């Protein structure tokens, strides 16, 4: 994996400036509260009702949360993160609302502002807390509804709001719209000598990507193209539906989430694709795989696969051969794909910064540094320290995360080197070190943790 470091630094420098581009909606506090309340009420279903009636305030969930464990700060207890939702539920929907109203405080705009930090900056919706909760409460799902309420109330972190607004208004991310995408893909194809079928009218597989991959991590796309061509697939990239990242889902703003997934659905339908492949991105996958049909209002006429899931199937079927162990590099994939579908839960999913990178943190760099320092000081229980201690501060390149998964007797990182440009690097990239960079476990550690695989 090669990353143009100048471009990378430029990008990193752009993140703080994003906030200035956000255009917060003008709303009175009363309107904000009403919007949040209405969103909560519309989204609470029987499962959530049952969960909110069950919590025993035992605190176990905190011991699973990668925000609480290294900081030991009670404010990060997962059970606190859905408190506003619970208050609205208890006052307005619960069968005992006539009683609860007597002693359950209503929500107000200050509460919404206070909870912004907890639901956006302090939760990756990784789902780990649901694995420890003795009552079986799915906190991540409720945090997502919290985000939806806050998003409709216009209380989204400014950087995220800027991204969500760009995707909502123009369908682009970091300025990469259809024209830019076509340009980049054609340039890449020419320079790298790899055929990338663009805007085909008919194809079995629609491959999606992301603006960030096109701009910064385009080795990922080249590697994907090599593999698809190697397999002889009928596939295409389409400029009318290529952006898999979904800032609507990430921010909780459903309108944008739907618009983004509809673009992909239309593009897939236009070329008759029976499979849509989602690149490495912790939120793109659940957005398309689980949410898109519900927002669309009917079942999708194609299957949705994460790239690593697709590759795994090819390895299992023998169409892709793996190189012997030791000759490849380690890969990695997002924690949200570990703890949530498609792979099944890896209970030893790391307490690391991998997942936290998917947000746009205002103080994220400082936070991750702190996390790493705490680990190094030994503030984590042994079992975590052993698995997470980085040998040096190490920045985990996003592109290297996708394929750290074992399928059958082999590992996706053992894909033949020629498929990723002569560098053995997972299917699509390898870890990149930046001295003094931030957080994140090395990808290497991850593999020691992978077990309990789910096979398709």
């Amino acid at each position, binding site marked *: 994996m090669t990353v143009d470091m100048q471009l990378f630094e430029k990008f990193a420098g752009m993140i703080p400036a994003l906030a200035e581009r956000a255009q917060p909606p003008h709303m009175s506090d009363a309107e904000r509260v009403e919007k949040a309340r209405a969103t909560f009420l519309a989204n*609470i*279903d*029987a*499962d959530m*009702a*049952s969960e909110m*009636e*069950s*919590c*025993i*305030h*035992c*605190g*176990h969930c905190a*011991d*699973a949360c990668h925000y*609480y464990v290294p900081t*030991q700060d*009670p*404010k990060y*207890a997962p*059970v*606190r993160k859905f408190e506003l939702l619970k208050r609205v539920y208890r006052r307005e*929907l*619960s*069968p*005992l609302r006539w*009683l609860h109203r007597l002693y359950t405080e209503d929500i107000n705009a200050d509460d919404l502002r206070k909870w912004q930090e907890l639901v956006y900056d302090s939760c990756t919706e990784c789902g780990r807390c*649901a*694995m*420890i909760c*003795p*009552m*079986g*409460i799915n906190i991540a*799902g409720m945090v997502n509804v919290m985000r939806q309420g806050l998003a409709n109330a216009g209380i989204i972190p400014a950087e995220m709001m800027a991204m969500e607004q760009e995707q909502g208004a123009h369908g682009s991310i970091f300025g990469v719209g259809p024209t830019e995408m076509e340009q980049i893909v054609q340039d890449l194809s020419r320079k790298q000598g790899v055929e990338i079928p663009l805007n085909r009218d008919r194809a079995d597989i629609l491959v999606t990507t992301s603006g960030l991959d096109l701009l910064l991590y385009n080795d990922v796309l080249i590697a994907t193209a090599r593999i698809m061509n190697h397999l002889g697939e009928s596939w295409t990239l389409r400029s009318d539906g290529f952006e898999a990242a979904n800032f609507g889902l990430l921010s909780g703003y459903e309108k944008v989430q739907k618009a983004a997934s509809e673009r992909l659905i239309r593009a897939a339908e236009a070329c008759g694709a029976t499979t849509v492949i989602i690149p490495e991105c912790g939120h793109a996958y659940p957005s398309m795989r*689980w949410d*898109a*049909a*519900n927002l*669309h*209002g*009917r*079942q*999708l006429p194609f*299957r*949705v696969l994460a790239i690593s899931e697709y590759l795994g199937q090819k390895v299992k079927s023998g169409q892709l051969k793996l190189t012997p162990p030791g000759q490849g590099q380690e890969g990695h994939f997002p924690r949200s794909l570990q*703890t*949530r*579908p*498609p792979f*099944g*839960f890896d*209970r*030893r999913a790391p307490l690391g910064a991998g997942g936290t990178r998917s947000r746009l943190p205002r103080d994220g760099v400082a936070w991750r540094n702190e996390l790493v320092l705490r680990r190094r000081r030994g503030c984590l*229980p*042994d*079992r975590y320290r052993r698995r997470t201690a980085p040998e040096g501060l190490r920045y985990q390149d996003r592109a290297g995360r996708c394929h750290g998964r074992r399928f059958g007797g082999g590992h996706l990182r053992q894909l033949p080197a020629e498929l990723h440009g002569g560098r053995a690097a997972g299917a699509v990239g390898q870890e990149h070190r930046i001295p003094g960079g931030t957080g994140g476990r090395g990808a290497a550690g991850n593999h020691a943790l992978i077990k*309990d695989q*789910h096979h398709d």
Partner: protein
Amino acid sequence: MTLLDFARGPALAWSLYILFFGSLLRLVGVLLARKHVDLSQPRNADTLGDSVRTVFTRFWFKPEFRASTLFITLIGYAMHIGLAVVVLLFVPHILFISKLSGLSWGGLPNDTIMLAGAITLAALVAMWVRRLQNPLMQAISNWEDHLALFITGLPVLTGMMAYGHLFQDYPTLLAIHILSVELLFVWFPFGKLFHAVMWIPTRFKLGAHFSRRGVKA
């Protein structure tokens, strides 16, 4: 009417009505809440087995969480098992239940029951101290949590006092014991003690949710 007559008569009847109808109201209200139809393609269409499994696997934590949860889980079990032994295996309780329902079974020696009661009380105190002392527990606790511990502990304490004939006045102590049980009955459907019912549907639903997505819960 003496206090004991009141406790054994109208107070018992009313508390049982409240227990039954309050629980029914809450449970049915929750189970009948609106369901969202999921149109996404399931990974597993048949989730029943996994759902039932999750109801049982959550009785014990996953190995990764052992260090952080073992102690408090054991205390929780000491409390719950101790309480079950005291409630269901103390001979006078069996006679009482038998009068109400016609069902009967064998009990344990009184000394064993007292030991179980003491363990239950000690566990409740440990849970309460943790709630008061631990910064995490302080942050997530509210008055309902404290009340639940108190309401659970009171019948055990008064029962042990009555059995030991403390303070001599047995009928009054017995009446207080029965009233404390009735207080538990009355509060049960409205507070967090209701988790004693909710754990089944909630675990089941989580199991179904994850199974549908192909995740081991």
